């Protein structure tokens, strides 16, 4: 059984086989492996995929979105491949409860992404100036090195605090437009200095248009911010697995500390 590769696209809420041909990556047919009352949608390859390109990414996403039109899906991370069919079933057995729970939670819902860019730097400078002007000097009489040290630290601390509060105010303002149309949300604030917000909202299919209207309103109202809307997506940001996964995630530098050049 060497040289077999099973590529997994998504978990779906169904055991049916597909009547029509859905083609996946590298022209291979996509089919459903059932497990109890759910299934994992896969393609079989002779060997591991070589020379991964953006076309692979686009094709993967296309398959998942096609499935999303007919089924409830839990999208699987790109390039998840198994070398034995038994492993696919073991995986389904291990995660069945998680998958079942997640499928029920995301049924008839889609994900929308909202990203906001602000002129963060300008805001921060303004805050720092305002803080300097406020009366911090009273607390720091005298001019010993340690006092100057503390004074400087304190000014930075205050500026940082004010800045944080400003971020919260803006994000709250923005979120107010969207959250009433969403059943769940995930907000990431200040991923970069300019990227004030990267948000994901889980929205019921029937409320999609309402959500898009809310976007237009928000964009019009908060004219000094830059907006991005994307979606509808499969619920990438709303899959919650209770089991330990990614224990050997190569991104984690912890694993490099005690090793002698491996990984």
């Amino acid at each position, binding site marked *: 059984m060497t040289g077999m590769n099973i590529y997994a696209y998504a978990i779906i809420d169904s055991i049916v086989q597909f009547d029509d041909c859905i083609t996946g990556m590298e022209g291979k047919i996509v089919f459903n492996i059932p497990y109890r009352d759910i299934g994992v949608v896969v393609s079989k390859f002779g060997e591991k995929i070589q020379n991964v390109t953006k076309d692979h990414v686009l094709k993967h996403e296309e398959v998942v979105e096609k499935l999303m039109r007919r089924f409830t899906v839990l999208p699987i991370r790109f390039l998840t491949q198994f070398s034995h069919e038994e492993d696919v079933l073991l995986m389904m057995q291990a995660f069945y409860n998680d998958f079942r729970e997640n499928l029920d939670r995301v049924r008839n819902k889609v994900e929308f992404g909202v990203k906001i860019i602000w002129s963060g730097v300008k805001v921060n400078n303004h805050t720092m100036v305002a803080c300097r002007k406020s009366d911090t000097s009273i607390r720091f009489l005298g001019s*010993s090195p340690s006092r100057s*040290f503390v004074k400087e630290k304190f000014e930075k601390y205050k500026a940082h605090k004010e800045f944080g509060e400003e971020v919260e105010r803006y994000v709250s303002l923005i979120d107010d437009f969207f959250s009433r149309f969403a059943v769940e949300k995930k907000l990431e604030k200040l991923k970069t200095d*300019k990227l004030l917000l990267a948000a994901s909202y889980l929205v019921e299919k029937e409320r999609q248009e309402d959500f898009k209207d809310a976007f237009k309103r928000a964009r019009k109202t908060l004219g000094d911010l*830059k907006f*991005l809307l994307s979606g509808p997506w499969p619920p990438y940001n709303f899959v919650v697995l209770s089991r330990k996964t990614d224990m050997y995630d190569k*991104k984690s530098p*912890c694993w490099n*500390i*005690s090793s002698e050049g491996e990984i």
Partner: protein
Amino acid sequence: MTMDRVVETDFPQDFVEEIEKVQGALPGRIDANPQNVERGLAKLVLTLVELIRKLLEKQAMRRIDAGSLTEEEIERVGETLMRLENKIHELKVIFGLEDEELNINLGPLGDLM
């Protein structure tokens, strides 16, 4: 390949720039070529000490903000924090870590600091 999905923005290049920063940011911290175990341990220890220093500093600032430290206490706290910061920097230099950001990626929990 028709998709229902849209990506809508008036500022595509601004967002491209920021998203690329986010996606590129993670791997940058990996020390993929640890030369020796000692250096790795030193980094870990110093990272933890730095974390403690930051927590102490933050706590001190909060108390100053709340007005609960006397002049003398502020002076002493300042002195201690200053020395601690210098000491950590010295150690970083000794272990050849001075250009590195002391931080640990906790996977799904994000960075330690």
